């Protein structure tokens, strides 16, 4: 979807003003850590994947997405996912009073303290084979399709309609446009190089190029 989360090339957000590296805590307030921890704990239930999580945050009204701090956007995402998965009701969210316990089959999946202290590995979820042979190889010229899906995609707007060169074929990964809609399918993934002048014209930075990871469905060959 053409949401405000797709920020590449936008202007007017002001200076970066980074906090000094030595002074920045991992979490700035206790509640940020709780949101991060809840997100991980709920992810362990296996009722959604990372693409559904991203899509839940992106679907907010643009003004809300921008007004919220980062972890507030995560909180909104968690609430949306819980509601859509049927794990909590709107009334429960509003009153804080539980109306029932979780389904029996989910109980073994609830994150334990022991599991929470380990770093999980999603390799099996992320790397999914694509049965079809790869269409492109390093050195091939490709066009990023001018497509505007109304649902989740990882093809940024600033690349659409532009020509680049395949830098590397990364094998295949779960295709976000479909996995965000509940269909798990692998797709060939390529790292594509775009010259800055191709994307930004005369205002492009001197000697500069952009590399982005694009699935095969985002690309078409250039003769």
């Amino acid at each position, binding site marked *: 979807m053409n949401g405000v*989360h797709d920020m*590449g*090339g936008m*202007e007017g*957000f*002001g*200076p*970066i*003003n*980074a906090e*000094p*590296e030595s002074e920045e805590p*991992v979490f700035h*307030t206790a*509640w940020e*850590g*709780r*949101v*991060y*921890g809840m997100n991980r*704990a*709920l992810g362990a239930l296996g009722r959604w994947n990372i693409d559904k999580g991203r899509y839940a*945050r992106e679907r907010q009204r643009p003004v809300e997405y*921008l*007004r919220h701090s980062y972890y*507030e956007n995560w*909180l909104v995402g968690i*609430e949306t996912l819980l509601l859509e998965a049927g794990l*909590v009701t709107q009334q*429960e*969210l509003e009153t*804080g*009073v*539980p109306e029932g316990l*979780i389904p029996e089959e*989910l109980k073994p999946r*609830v994150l*334990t*303290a022991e599991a*929470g202290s*380990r*770093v*999980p*590995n*999603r*390799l099996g979820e*992320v790397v999914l084979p694509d049965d079809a042979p790869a269409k492109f190889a390093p050195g091939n010229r490709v066009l990023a399709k001018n497509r505007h899906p109304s649902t989740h995609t*990882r*093809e940024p707007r600033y690349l659409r309609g532009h020509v680049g060169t395949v830098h590397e074929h990364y094998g295949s990964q*779960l295709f976000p446009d479909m996995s965000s809609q509940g269909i798990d399918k692998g797709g060939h993934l390529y*790292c594509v190089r775009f010259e800055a002048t191709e*994307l930004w014209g005369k205002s492009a930075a*001197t*000697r*500069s*190029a*952009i*590399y982005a*990871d*694009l699935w095969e469905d985002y690309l078409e060959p250039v003769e």
Partner: protein
Amino acid sequence: MADEHEHGHSHGHDEDFTEPPADIELRVKALESLLVEKGLANRAAIDAVIDTYETKVGPRNGAAVVARAWTEPEFRKWLLEDSTAAIASMGYVGTQGEQMRVLENTVDTHNLVVCTLCSCYPWPVLGLPPVWYKSAPYRSRAVSDPRGVLDEFGTQVPETTEVRVWDSTSEMRYLVLPQRPDGTEGWNAEELAQLVSRNSMIGVEVARAPGTAASAG
């Protein structure tokens, strides 16, 4: 009782439109209580997740990888040829780092990493991303004005050096291998790691020069 003073940190924006409302803390508490009462989550697990990313997983991991690459030519070669395996051999594995590519900075090439669509970042080697990395100003301009962004971090890259910006749009994760600072001949990996800032591994800065204060990672 969150008031503005408890939020003491600065998000750094002139117009601070990201400051959360004061009731956010209560809303988070209410949600956690609901999840715990329903049996969807337990507090000890959430505590453990927080502790892991506050104390165990962070940019010191990436600094160890970089310092080893600076001191062991065979490891450097492996790191550039098979980043995922070389990093995993040091024990840095898992979510948001299952597949890795290391980008080597040289006299000819300077690499910079961003995620324009959200906040993708190599957690096993760098920990969780800083606020600025996830902010609209960085995400919007890193791809269209990388030299301007570098300038904001006090980093001057010669015009003869190509700036490559890597937009993390998939589950592949990127780590920059900064150039080894001059004047560090004979230093061991442990000493060198002190010069490897988090920001140099994102690519917005270069590694610290010898004699400059190393900030706590």
